[in-house]
């Protein structure tokens, strides 16, 4: 019986083997075949689908640069930090995340905590997170292993390195695209085209070393080069801002500097404006001060108090007082909202206004061109004129009396221009109105250009014609006005104002470049030349004296218009002070317009409010732009001289050198030779100025206090300065004129300076000319 075992064992072994082979290996092989052949494509497809990803490669937005290549707006990659709240496990984790992220991203921990309590799959915590902070966030994620809850998405951030410079012109960005200004206008050129790449990625999202295909090449955004000049823009903004504050303007102001021959805009500013780096808050201090004036100070904000309870109790207690603080708060908030919506508005192209007397340049040129008036024409102003039963008062109620053609511009005499308008007639007047481009938009490459409001010929009777002759009862934009004045002075060509100088792609190839477009010839060269001469006289002799800049032959026209529409709706009468000018008058190159809306200072006239701004701007900008100063003899005599170097000389030699330069010396100390001098060699000193000569070693420079030199006449200024021990340089005074009053000194009153330091004082004329 045991014998049976041996073959049985053998047999059993064989059976086991066969069973294993057939059942086991057979099944295995079968399943492999099933998966790889039968379902192979399906699985391979799924595998490929999970491995291959089509990723979009973001294109970096193109930069905006000024005419010299200085960067005005540029983009860089940044990160958006987000969380997946539904994956957060437990209170402790939520607190950890809230506190950690709040600290790194400078947010309120309570707010972040509230976000963690949501149940969504995606909640944005902060956008535009820069690289160093992003790196810290990544480290935080790694440290606490929160990779499935906190994530970083690549996006971009737009930088405006110059803060609010040209903000209304540049515009600002929303999440992905430009929302206003040039950012909006040139969106297509700036944004570039994202590329698409198909790549094999491993489970962690990084590339596998296998071939992939680039489906679409990424095309980086183009660079937009503007005609703007940063320095010109800076100068314009600086002076405009100052004037708005000094004159307490309540409805903003704007200014434009333009090349009259090409239409290239070198500077365009609206103040107060905003910071495009932070476009959704009101940051301008002047705006905030105006709001505070109207609505009182706001209640303490939550950011100031750490304790939420404190704030609640405060508002509770204040609410219980009289409800006044709460109402104040809401009024403040309402005004803040309004201000925020308003701050993006580019007043220079969007707001229409009655141009007032500046428009007389158009009426005048039309009349001269049509031959209705000429060099021999005379006008008589009794102080008023009556047209079809309506009486128009001249701003000089006693009348200007007998005037020639130049005089009426100098005096800005309304009756005279009304008469000219009547002589032209409605049809001709309207024809020139149209011709100067005032019925259509200028076509400047910015969004939101305002359309003008005016009477059509069917609508115009003699009364309307009369009002329009001196620039009231119709509204145009400042850009239209300056374009029209440019046409008046540049030989009669109406040019198209533009901001784009060129567009270059990422490789530097020029895609587009500016063209000087002459829309039409409006008046003849001769008429234009005549106008230039007369308008120069306005500055030299007339209402525009405050716009005078020595050596640069400014020409222009002042304007003070009444906001009649507002007055009609029951509000008190407000004014717009403006000035539009150009230089050099003998060969005009650049034009400037300054418009200040609702000034509330002691003097609200364009001649006193806006003209000095134009002067300050041109004084700074024209030398920079390379316009040569040509001085008349009188001007030359009044120029400041350069202080000669007298250190080391004997006192006698020094005094002699000084008197040769037209200066006098004041010796301090008993020494024989000059140890130090103030002002130092090479600085400016006015003619007849004093140079302090120190003759002893270890001298202590004498300190004097700068006196208040504003609101004084020229002689008063010179005398005050001399007695105080400082030198003054006078600007803005037309030689041979009277009535100039100082309004600004470069070194503030009360500052302690060394004896002999130069203080520049600017003057203006305060005639009440409309």
């Amino acid at each position, binding site marked *: 019986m045991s014998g049976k075992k041996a073959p049985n064992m053998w047999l059993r072994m064989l059976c086991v083997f066969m069973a294993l082979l057939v059942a086991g290996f057979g099944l295995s092989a079968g399943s492999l075949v099933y998966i790889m052949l039968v379902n192979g494509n399906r699985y391979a497809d799924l595998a490929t689908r999970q491995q291959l990803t089509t990723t979009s490669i973001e294109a970096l937005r193109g930069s905006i640069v000024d005419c010299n290549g200085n960067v005005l707006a540029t983009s*860089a990659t*940044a990160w958006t930090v987000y969380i997946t709240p539904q994956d957060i496990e437990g209170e402790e984790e939520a607190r950890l995340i809230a506190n950690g992220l709040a600290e790194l991203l400078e947010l309120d921990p309570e707010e972040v905590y509230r976000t963690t309590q949501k149940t969504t799959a995606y909640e944005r915590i902060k956008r535009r997170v820069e690289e160093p902070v992003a790196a810290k966030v990544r480290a935080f994620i790694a440290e606490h292993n929160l990779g499935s809850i906190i994530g970083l998405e690549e996006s971009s951030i737009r930088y405006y390195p110059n803060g609010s410079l040209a903000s209304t012109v540049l515009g600002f960005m929303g999440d992905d695209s430009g929302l206003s200004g040039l950012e909006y206008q040139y969106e297509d050129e700036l944004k570039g085209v994202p590329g698409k790449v198909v790549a094999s990625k491993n489970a962690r999202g*990084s590339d596998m*070393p296998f071939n992939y295909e680039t489906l679409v090449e990424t095309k980086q955004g183009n660079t937009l080069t503007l005609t703007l000049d940063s320095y010109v823009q800076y100068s314009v903004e600086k002076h405009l801002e100052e004037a708005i504050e000094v004159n307490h303007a309540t409805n903003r102001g704007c200014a434009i500097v333009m090349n009259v021959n090409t239409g290239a805009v070198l500077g365009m500013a609206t103040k107060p404006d905003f910071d495009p780096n932070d476009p959704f808050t009101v940051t301008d201090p002047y705006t905030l001060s105006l709001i505070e004036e109207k609505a009182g100070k706001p209640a303490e904000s939550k950011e100031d108090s750490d304790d939420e309870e404190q704030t609640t109790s405060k508002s509770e207690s204040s609410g219980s007082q009289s409800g006044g603080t709460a109402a104040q708060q809401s009024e403040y908030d309402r005004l803040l909202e309004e201000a925020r919506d308003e701050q993006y508005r580019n007043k220079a192209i969007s707001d229409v206004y009655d141009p007032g007397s500046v428009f007389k340049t158009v009426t005048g040129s039309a009349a001269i061109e049509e031959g209705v008036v000429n060099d021999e024409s005379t006008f008589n102003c009794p102080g008023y004129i009556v047209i079809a039963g309506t009486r128009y008062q001249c701003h000089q109620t006693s009348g200007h009396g007998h005037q020639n053609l130049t005089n009426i511009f100098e005096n800005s005499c309304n009756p005279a221009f009304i008469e000219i308008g009547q002589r032209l007639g409605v049809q001709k007047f309207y024809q020139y109105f149209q011709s100067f481009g005032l019925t259509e938009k200028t076509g400047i490459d910015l969004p939101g250009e305002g359309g003008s409001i005016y009477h059509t010929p069917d609508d115009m009777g003699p009364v309307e014609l009369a009002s329009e002759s001196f620039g009231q009862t119709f509204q145009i934009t400042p850009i239209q006005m300056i374009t029209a004045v440019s046409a008046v002075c540049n030989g009669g060509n109406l040019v198209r104002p533009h901001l784009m100088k060129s567009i270059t792609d990422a490789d530097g190839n020029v895609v587009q470049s500016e063209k000087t477009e002459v829309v039409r010839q409006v008046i003849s060269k001769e008429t234009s030349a005549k106008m230039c001469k007369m308008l120069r006289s306005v500055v030299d002799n007339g209402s525009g004296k405050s716009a005078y800049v020595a050596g640069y032959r400014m020409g222009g026209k002042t304007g003070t218009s009444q906001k009649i529409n507002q007055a009609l709706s029951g509000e008190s009468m407000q004014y717009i002070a403006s000035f539009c000018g150009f230089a050099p008058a003998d060969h005009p190159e650049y034009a400037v317009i300054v418009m200040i809306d609702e000034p509330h200072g002691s003097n609200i006239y364009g001649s006193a409010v806006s003209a000095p701004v134009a002067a300050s701007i041109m004084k700074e900008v024209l030398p920079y732009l390379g316009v040569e*100063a040509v001085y008349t003899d009188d001007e030359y005599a009044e120029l*400041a001289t350069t202080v000669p170097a007298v250190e080391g000389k004997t006192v006698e030699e020094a005094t002699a050198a000084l008197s040769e330069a037209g200066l006098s010396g004041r010796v301090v100390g008993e020494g024989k030779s000059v140890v130090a001098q103030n002002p130092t060699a090479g600085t400016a000193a006015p003619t007849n100025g004093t140079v302090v000569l120190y003759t002893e070693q270890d001298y202590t420079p004498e300190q004097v206090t700068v006196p208040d030199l504003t609101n004084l006449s020229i002689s008063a200024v010179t005398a005050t300065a001399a007695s105080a021990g400082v030198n003054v340089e006078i*600007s803005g005074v037309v030689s041979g004129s009277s009535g100039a009053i100082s309004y600004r000194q470069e070194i503030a009153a009360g500052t302690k300076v060394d004896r002999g330091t130069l203080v520049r004082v600017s003057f203006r004329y305060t005639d009440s000319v409309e």
Partner: protein
Amino acid sequence: MRSYDSTAYDFDLFTEKEKREVVEIPTRPARGGRRSRKAAARRSGRSVLAIAAAVSVFLLLMVAQLHCQLQTSEVVAQINATEREIEALKSDNVRLQVELERKVSFENMEQSARAMGMQKISAAQREYVQLHGEDAVEMPEQDKDLIIRLQELF
């Protein structure tokens, strides 16, 4: 096969033997000779070595190929990491440039200059210089030798 009952023929022995080969061979007549056993062992040892060698070659070839792929894989990973670093550094560079621009904005410069006591150039201090036309080249008279003169003649 035990159905055979005849004891005369002990077929069992045969039948059994058919099934299993009796090992005689190992107790070969050549039981003699540790030499022959050694030879046999050496022969088998040689084949073992041969097999081992062949397999090793095979192994090494595969490993070499994989090694190359491995290196590709590592390098690609490094490239990706470096690329990401470059991007991050680029955007950081832009950020720093912007900060620099902010610091040297016109506003800052003017304020800093005034704080240092500087003043803007006065109109009087600007001197205009007239530059004459283009540069002209003057050639001095050359001593003409014979050859040049002959050339000039023709």
